[in-house]
């Protein structure tokens, strides 16, 4: 039996495009061009720093918001609207549906990131009038942002597989915020004692470690990223996303579609 994953993924991508999700690119382009013109007028020698910081942070935030708001509806909306009935009554396994949805959303975000990246480079060229070798580091930051999206997508899908869209959004966004401060949480765990230490350590390792993916500031200062960190983050993101997806599959496999 052929896998249904590519078909489900491409339909998910098509849905996002037709639901005008990529329109966020217009807002992004406006934000970035406005910022580039503004910093070009007011800042001295730090235009590039501001554009890279602002641009990459916007890429990350726009993507996370899209990942959460599409991800939370991927399963629940299909159940609510009963579009799932005509899909699962075909030779499609439930896990294929979840994995297909994941790849569809991940694909949407990657394409979105690609266009935003063009915007970042365009703004950078506008303020500095040339590219230097260190600008290639931006690709590493973008790669980390995409890895971050994989985790957010899988978490949104996990919550969507058992919870309402509103609660899923709250859970996913909370985890994103906590995960972004996971370095602080780990520091706190190291300093705490007794039960608090155990609890804080458990929480620190359970929430996604998004702080490890944030290299925007160091890249803006043209500091290189260690190859080991790239490898670690890749393995971590793949493992975390796989775990969250497995959870989503496990819940969805046994769920009654009322």
């Amino acid at each position: 039996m052929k896998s249904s994953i590519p078909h489900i993924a491409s339909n998910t991508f098509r849905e996002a495009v037709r639901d005008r999700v990529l329109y966020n690119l217009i807002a992004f382009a406006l934000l970035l061009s406005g910022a580039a013109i503004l910093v070009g007028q007011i800042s001295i020698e730090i235009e590039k720093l501001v554009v890279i910081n602002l641009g990459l942070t916007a890429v990350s935030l726009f993507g996370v918001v899209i990942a959460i708001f599409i991800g939370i509806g991927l399963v629940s909306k299909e159940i609510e609207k009963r579009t799932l009935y005509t899909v699962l009554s075909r030779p499609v396994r439930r896990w294929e549906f979840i994995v297909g949805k994941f790849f569809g959303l991940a694909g949407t975000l990657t394409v979105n990131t690609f266009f935003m990246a063009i915007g970042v480079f365009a703004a950078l060229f506008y303020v500095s009038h040339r590219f230097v070798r260190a600008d290639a580091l931006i690709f590493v930051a973008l790669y980390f942002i995409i890895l971050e999206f994989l985790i957010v997508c899988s978490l949104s899908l996990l919550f969507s597989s058992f919870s309402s869209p509103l609660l899923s959004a709250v859970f996913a966004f909370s985890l994103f915020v906590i995960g972004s401060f996971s370095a602080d949480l780990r520091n706190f765990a190291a300093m705490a004692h007794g039960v608090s230490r155990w609890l804080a350590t458990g929480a620190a390792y359970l929430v996604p470690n998004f702080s490890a993916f944030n290299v925007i500031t160091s890249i803006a200062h043209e500091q290189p990223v260690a190859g080991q960190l790239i490898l670690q983050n890749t393995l971590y993101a793949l493992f975390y996303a796989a775990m969250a997806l497995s959870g989503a599959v496990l819940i969805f496999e046994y769920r009654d579609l009322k």
Partner: protein
Amino acid sequence: MPSIEILGLEKTYQVGFWRKRPKQALRPLHLQVEDGEIFGFLGPNGAGKTTTLKLLMGLIFPTSGSARILGREWTDPAVKAQIGFLPEQPYFYDYLTAHELLEYYGQLSGVPGKHRRHRIEQVLHQVGLRDVQGVHLRKFSKGMLQRVGIAQAILHDPKLVFFDEPMSGLDPMGRREVRDLMEQLKREGKTVFFSTHILSDAEALCDRVAIIHKGEVLRAGAVDDLTSSVRGKVEVIWQGAQIPASIKALGAECHVTADKVRAILDEKHQDAVIDALRRERLRLVSVTPVRTSLETYFVEKLRHAETTAGSMAGGV
């Protein structure tokens, strides 16, 4: 080999937020649908028809029991390549056109690429959807969506088709077309299992039916067998407006319409009525045995079930 064998499928939901309590949606259901027949699954709203179909489609899981479809376990993914399903009041991805939707479903059902385009055109034509190229489903009427639903159910040329309330939302013309389509599917050797509460459709189409009420099958059998059980009356029609006294005396129930009289009476008085008409020189138009309609049988069966349940509850 039967197309469907339902072996005691049962579904109980846990309802309530804090204090969960069981609610039985389907009592252990035993049913067999033969290969190549049109089988009607009849029942009022909330009887358990959709629950049964969802169980068979693997959308919900049974509390107990099992089923075999086309000779295999109903959970076997290979079974799903050979069945088609139209859910009740179907809703589809409204950002797609009918062609795109069928293309997607064709891919999921494993219809080979080179046949898909041709097959899509064929089924759209079959369900009476023409000139819909480029129109998104969000612009479709309810009846058009129902036709798309039927098209996607037969797209992959399944051996067995499940329709949940297929006539819902269709105008009389559309209902007629769906009836014709079901008959055509039967002629092609396919088995059709459809749920409905429109009994005239079931009576016109079905080889056999099952009546379900409150999650329990009350009766299953051939339509003729169910409706013949209350025979014993004849309908006699003659020309004119005159009703002879001897016919009235037989206890006939007479209705005068324009230039004809229609009388319904016991079968045993048939000859006496004909003799009386001869004597009075009235022209006989027809004598027809009265068959109870499926609707009458259905209503009586449901009333009986309600009365029995009521008296049992009263006894307790």
